[in-house]
């Protein structure tokens, strides 16, 4: 078995993947991962045998990532504010002028098996990484860090209205991306 420091270091790429996805900033991600590795190496005794090394490191990373988000505060939720990011993705959906569905949403079936496949995880992560930066950060604070909406507002000094608008857009964009890149292909031809 390789020495502990080599084992820890071998997970660097894996940790970077999630740090990048959550922080959407290369320098912040590098810092969070370095701090994670240092913390792990400085207290190997707190790595209990019950958890796997990777799982333990992910746990530390989450704390470092929350510190980074807190530290960068306002910057975290300021998007590029491009025109495209301001669009409500609901307007892309097939609604008639009276607000009713012009075409019913497609049937995604019941792909329980597919939804834990590695291919699906790769598509899901690609879709999440394509969200506008601020939307992606807030979305992953909900879905990866599992923070409540209240806590996110508190950490970032964000109004709940602002948070809900961003999460609304993020979720609908993700839905659209998965529909195009996953469900459209597995759906039987019409």
């Amino acid at each position, binding site marked *: 078995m390789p020495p502990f420091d080599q084992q820890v270091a071998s997970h660097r790429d894996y940790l970077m993947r999630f740090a990048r996805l959550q922080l959407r900033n290369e320098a912040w991600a590098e810092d969070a991962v370095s701090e994670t590795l240092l913390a792990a190496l400085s207290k190997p005794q707190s790595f209990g045998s019950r958890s796997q090394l*990777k799982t333990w490191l992910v746990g530390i990373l989450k704390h470092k990532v929350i510190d980074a988000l807190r530290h960068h505060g306002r910057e975290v939720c300021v998007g590029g504010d491009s025109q495209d990011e301001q669009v409500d993705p609901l307007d892309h*959906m097939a609604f008639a002028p009276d607000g009713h569905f012009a075409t019913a949403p497609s049937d995604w079936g019941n792909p329980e098996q597919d939804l834990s496949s590695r291919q699906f995880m790769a598509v899901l992560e690609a879709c999440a990484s394509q969200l506008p930066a601020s939307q992606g950060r807030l979305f992953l604070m909900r879905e990866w860090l599992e923070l409540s909406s209240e806590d996110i507002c508190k950490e970032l000094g964000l109004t709940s209205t602002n948070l809900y608008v961003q999460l*609304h857009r993020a979720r609908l964009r993700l*839905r659209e991306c998965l529909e195009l890149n996953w469900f459209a292909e597995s759906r039987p031809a019409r």
Partner: protein
Amino acid sequence: MMPFPLKRTCKEVSALLIAREDRELPPVERVALRLHMAMCQACPRFERQVLTLRNAMKNWRQYANDPGDER
């Protein structure tokens, strides 16, 4: 005063179904949602998509947090 204060369009209902992932809906909206879902053919499909997404994120979280030894 609107004649049907509980009447919602599919677009409004879609927004509620998305919002429900991040916040508790006010009681009036919950009732309005339920009424609409009982009468609409299309919105239950959208709801199933939203629930599928919720499930997918749960699977992903498990995969990301407790990855086993795939590498």
